[in-house]
């Protein structure tokens, strides 16, 4: 299994017990309360792989992306990029480090400045780090445009003259300009038409092969995330509840929440619909300011028992490439023994 974390695998990014709490205390009454957007996440990202992060809106997946991008200060924990703790870096060192990790944004209509030409948008990172200028800069922009499938004759147009898919290509070209090692894709296809989504996913995976990129792909639907990812992490209320190789997680989900997400995938063939087991979870995500006791999913879980209300489940390890946090995992084949561990 190539998804095993071997000792000689090169770890590009490591999150150690990362927490991001927002202080929403009422200063008048001195009630301390926190919104736990990201709560104790540990994750290792290997060089060249794609980790998909899925979850409902508000589960903290975008916050996690922003934390990795160093756009928000951590409440607790560490983020190591190539073994280096990013929170220890000075502003100047961090600025230099930013060359190595870039971001692709969700909304291609607001991620490009409407008053800048495409050339200037893609050239901006190159100008910022004084990597190229004049004709060299122009040529570099043209080759980036070529790389993402844009015509160089479009360089002097403004973003509003492009379609959503083309705009997203501009955003990708901009992210690639600095030859980053890691790209955080924050729901890059959710604002696009379905027909365009596949094109952008293919573009991203071709670029990965060509340039040896590492992706953190944030999305909310399993099919698209599965298409591009090597491993998938499922998040619920600020925590990773299950992480596994993509085929493993689809065939053998252990956490009821993962199962519910999978059963929400529509089946295109009407004849097959009857065969599919439906796991429908009800209700909304509980208020993250007062998360439920014990397992945070127990309020909506079909299999919840007394223990789930009292005790918070720890990450258990099925294989080294499949971990989940649930007291009563879904049993597909029969009993299994689990060991404790981190992703």
């Amino acid at each position, binding site marked *: 299994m190539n998804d095993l974390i071997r000792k000689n695998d090169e770890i590009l990014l490591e999150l150690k017990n990362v927490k991001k709490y927002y202080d929403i205390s009422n200063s008048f009454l001195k009630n301390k309360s926190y919104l736990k957007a990201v709560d104790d996440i540990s994750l290792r990202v290997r060089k060249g792989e794609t980790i998909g992060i899925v979850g409902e809106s508000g589960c903290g997946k975008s916050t996690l992306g922003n934390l990795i*991008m160093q*756009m928000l200060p951590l409440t607790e924990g560490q983020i190591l990029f190539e073994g280096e703790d990013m929170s220890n870096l000075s502003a100047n060192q*961090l*600025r*230099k480090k*930013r*060359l190595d990790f*870039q*971001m692709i*944004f*969700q*909304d291609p209509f*607001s*991620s*490009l*400045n*409407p*008053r*800048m030409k495409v050339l200037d948008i893609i050239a*901006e*990172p190159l100008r*910022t*780090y004084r990597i190229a200028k004049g004709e060299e800069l122009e040529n570099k922009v043209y080759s980036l445009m070529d790389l993402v499938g844009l015509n160089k004759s479009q360089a002097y147009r*403004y973003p*509003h003259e492009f379609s959503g898919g083309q705009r997203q290509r501009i*955003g990708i070209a*901009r992210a690639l300009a*600095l030859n980053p090692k890691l790209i955080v894709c924050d729901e890059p296809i959710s604002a696009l038409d379905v027909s365009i989504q596949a094109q952008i996913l293919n573009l991203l995976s071709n670029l990965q092969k060509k340039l040896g990129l590492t992706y953190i792909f944030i999305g909310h639907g399993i099919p698209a995330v599965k298409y591009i990812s090597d491993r998938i992490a499922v998040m619920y209320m600020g925590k990773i509840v299950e992480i596994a190789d993509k085929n493993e997680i689809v065939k053998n989900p252990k956490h009821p929440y993962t199962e519910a997400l999978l059963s929400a995938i529509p089946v295109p063939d009407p004849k097959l619909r009857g065969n599919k087991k439906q796991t429908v979870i009800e209700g909304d995500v509980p208020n993250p300011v007062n998360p439920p006791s014990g397992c945070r999913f127990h309020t909506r879980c079909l299999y919840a028992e007394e223990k789930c209300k009292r005790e918070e489940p720890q990450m258990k390890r099925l294989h080294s490439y499949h971990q989940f946090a649930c007291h009563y995992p879904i049993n597909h084949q029969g009993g299994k023994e689990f060991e404790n561990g981190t992703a």
Partner: protein
Amino acid sequence: MKWVKMLLVSKVGLIGVIIIILFTFTAIFAPLIVPHDPTEVNLGKSSLPPIWLDGGESTYLLGTDNLGRDVFSRIIYGSQISMLVGVCSVLVAGLIGIPVGLISGYYGGLVDSLLMRIVDSQIAIPSILLALVILGFMNPTLLTIIFVIGVSSWIAYARVVRSEVLSLKEREYVKAAKTMGVRHSFIMTRHLLPNVFSSIIVISTINVATSIITESSLSFLGLGPQSISWGSILSEGRDYLATNWWVATFPGIAITVTVLGIILFGDWLRDVLDPRTEV
């Protein structure tokens, strides 16, 4: 060129530009245009009505005031001071207000609170009072008048720019620039400023009008620059409104037309600067 094309397409913009060019030329070439010395007192010709009324004289196009000075010549000369004060004080106001608004909105927090409290405290003082106080210990020369009017009107820029920046800085392209490590000064000048420009133009054009009027109020109070301006002609003419209505009316019309021209020009400029406008 997009500019020229848009000028021909937009009649409103064309009118604005023509008015501005016309008034700029009259201001520059005033000595060549005027039929009389604007300061020449001729009591024998006092209170003549405009040329098309009974008793009007052919060389006094718009009549004369109570001292027999030619109103037309005075308006032509007055355009120099009025246009200069109007435009330059707006520049002064913008140069103070726009950076304050950008910094305040972009950085937020303590910087924002501090700058906005300064703005608030200035709102509490009527601008004409502020101008009076400053002019109390400065000589009312042309430069000080421009400075005073500018300083008393920059808050509008700061407020509007700040509120626009507050929403613009949450856009993803600003976030993208930050993730790329673009410097704050660049984000402010390259990403935020161009996108608040249309609002700035709208305030500036209105501000030109109010500056011309503020200058006339200061002239009326005897604190204006000691030269002819539309405002000073207007305020002198007010005393004779019942008998010599033309003295106050024509500089008033000049102010109105100039302001209209500048507003039309501003509208057009806003469209030209927006890349989304199709020709």
